[in-house]
């Protein structure tokens, strides 16, 4: 795939070009309204020429809701007595129009690839992947909560993006990474990147801070017996402090658990799929009343072991991209990096 050099003015022109055909979304910097918006919470649609800024570090909200909306309407139906359609389930109309999400960071781009693993046979999720183009910016600043390199990612990675923009002194290197990306730049007169610019990018990707040897250290967790991690004494302290809210799971780009329910208001119904959280007691409650994860400790442990053990056992990679959102927003400062360190130390003691 091709790499181009693009100036900020040319980039603005390109975005305006997209706005003629597609909905273009950028990160919302003020408080993102979750209700009554036509797009994912934490993002906003911009019109031609409308200014926007990219925040430092990960965007306030991940891109998860573009693929996995809260809620997703699966079916609609009518229960009114004389309705001709009474009791018939109908799929809502789906949009097939391409949408462009602009300002995606490498961690979030990686999260979409991870979420595709469990959702690979889910037509709703995959349809949104089809129609969503991710235009990302590689990172030049690492926040104190960032740990993508520890999770095997990199601030300069572009996996999962359709177009990647890497800031240079007087513009951006524009990498076209997919067919969708090619569609977005089709017909544009762009200058190919020079050898020296490409060298700068290659240097960044191999240079200091681009990767971390810690990620290979973490691999021991995959090989470690589950019981060894399951019985770690640290869960007691973590579980005791955790208040079992759903903040971490809802802001996490890779938490994807859901539940389904029929909602009926005045005879009009909809079957929705909505976000659930393994932190909530009801998540694992059985019809019998028994709850296999009835204690806080068990639920806290499950969240981490799912990301670090169960998910990799089933799909390969860890289910964490190191965006650090949960670290910053946890009410009781449960820091997944500390959990990782404790678990690794435990495996090393063997």
């Amino acid at each position, binding site marked *: 795939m091709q790499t181009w050099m693009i100036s900020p003015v040319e980039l603005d022109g390109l975005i305006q070009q997209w706005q003629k055909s597609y909905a273009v979304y950028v990160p919302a910097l003020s408080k993102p309204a979750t209700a009554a918006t036509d797009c994912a919470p934490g993002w906003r649609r911009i019109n031609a020429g409308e200014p926007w800024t990219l925040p430092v570090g990960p965007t306030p909200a991940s891109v998860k809701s573009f693929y996995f909306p809260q809620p997703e309407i699966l079916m609609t139906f009518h229960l009114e007595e004389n309705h001709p359609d009474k009791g018939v389930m109908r799929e809502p109309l789906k949009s097939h129009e391409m949408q462009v999400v602009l300002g995606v960071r490498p961690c979030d781009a990686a999260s979409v690839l991870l979420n595709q693993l469990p959702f690979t046979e889910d037509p709703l999720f995959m349809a949104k992947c089809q129609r969503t183009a991710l235009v990302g910016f590689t990172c030049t600043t690492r926040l104190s909560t960032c740990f993508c390199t520890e999770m095997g990612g990199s601030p300069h990675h572009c996996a999962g993006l359709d177009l990647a923009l890497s800031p240079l002194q007087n513009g951006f290197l524009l990498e076209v990474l997919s067919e969708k990306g090619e569609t977005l730049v089709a017909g544009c007169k762009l200058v190919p990147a020079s050898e020296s610019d490409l060298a700068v990018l290659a240097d960044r990707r191999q240079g200091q801070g681009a990767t971390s040897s810690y990620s290979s250290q973490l691999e021991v967790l995959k090989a470690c017996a589950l019981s060894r991690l399951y019985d770690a004494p640290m869960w007691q302290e973590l579980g005791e402090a955790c208040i079992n809210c759903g903040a971490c799971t809802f802001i996490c780009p890779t938490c994807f658990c859901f539940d389904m329910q029929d909602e009926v208001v005045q005879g009009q119904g909809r079957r929705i799929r909505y976000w659930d959280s393994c932190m909530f007691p009801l998540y694992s409650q059985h019809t019998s009343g028994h709850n296999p994860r009835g204690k806080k400790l068990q639920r806290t442990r499950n969240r981490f072991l799912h990301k670090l053990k169960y998910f990799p056992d089933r799909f390969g990679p860890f289910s964490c991209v190191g965006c650090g959102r949960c670290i910053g927003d946890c*009410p009781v400062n449960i820091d997944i990096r500390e959990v990782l360190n404790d678990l690794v130390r435990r495996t090393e003691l063997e």
Partner: protein
Amino acid sequence: MNMATINDQITDEIRKEARRLLKTGEVAALIGYAAGSLPMTVKPLVVRCLEDCERLVWNTFCVLNLATYLPEVLSSVETPYDPRDPRPEEPQAKVAILATGCWSRNIVIQIQEKRVDRERVVVIGVGSRGMVSRAKVKALFPEKDILTVDEGDHELVVHGADFTETINRWAVVRDNCQTCAHPDPVLVDIRIGEPVSERKNPHPFQQVELLEQRSSEERWAWFTAEFSTCIRCYACRNVCPLCYCPTCFVDDARPQWLGKSLDAVDTGLFHVLRAFHCAGRCTDCGACESVCPMGINMRMLTKKLNKDVRDLYGIEAGMEPEAPLPLTTFPLASVEFIVADLAPLPAAARIVQPSSEGDESCKHG
């Protein structure tokens, strides 16, 4: 800044007291705080062994309410027994807990509501100088990554990769602390540090009054905008020592009171009902507001109800362990009145003024 600050001294005293309490076996556990992994954060910590006493800290960022943890920690140190058997009769181990003004008032409410046995709690009282809002500090440095914050008695020194700035501490103290009239614990077994005098606060409900003065359209606009960002994570509910229903009304399935996703009506109803469930019990500790990942000011709802309860019943929650709870206690004399005549609320409320005749009072569990 090299001098030991007030909070450094309090930390030392807390550790010393924790060691003594655990060593003598006076308590089986102590609920306090450990240092957090990020600037301006702390972790709640239950100390059960002497080594962990050194991890305890006290600083200006202790924004959670430790009373939330008290019932669970108390039951964790009880002699295990089969739930079908009667409770063991022998005296059960005690738990020590750090408490400022509002947290101690929540412990009082836990005693009033029979969730906590007064005899089993050792309250380590610390006068609060007001806790700092992390969100307020962050808002002063937009788009900056704060790496460390050094705490002085009256100032905070905020460090980033390319800046160091000193800010006034009181300016970033949480709104609820700034308008708090009772910073000193109302229930103390062991005193740490100097008592903090009652604040002569002329405007405890100023923020609420500003909202009340607006038109109903303006208030509705405020309400819908404020709560539109809620992600229904329930951090506000779970961090609150008042919320302990085995199944919260939002989680009930039969009947299901609320939808499960992000409908604005459902979200608004959750917040309104949660606030009403806290009426007459909320101590304005501010934990709900402090932990909200979306920065929602849901405290305005409980604060408004605190004002109503004060105006109607002349009561501030949790000030006296012996006092009746305003909304679950009524004198028998008022029963006939309530049945006979549905008079306007303020008149009815006046009759429900706490009765001096203890045996005349009925209590609802």
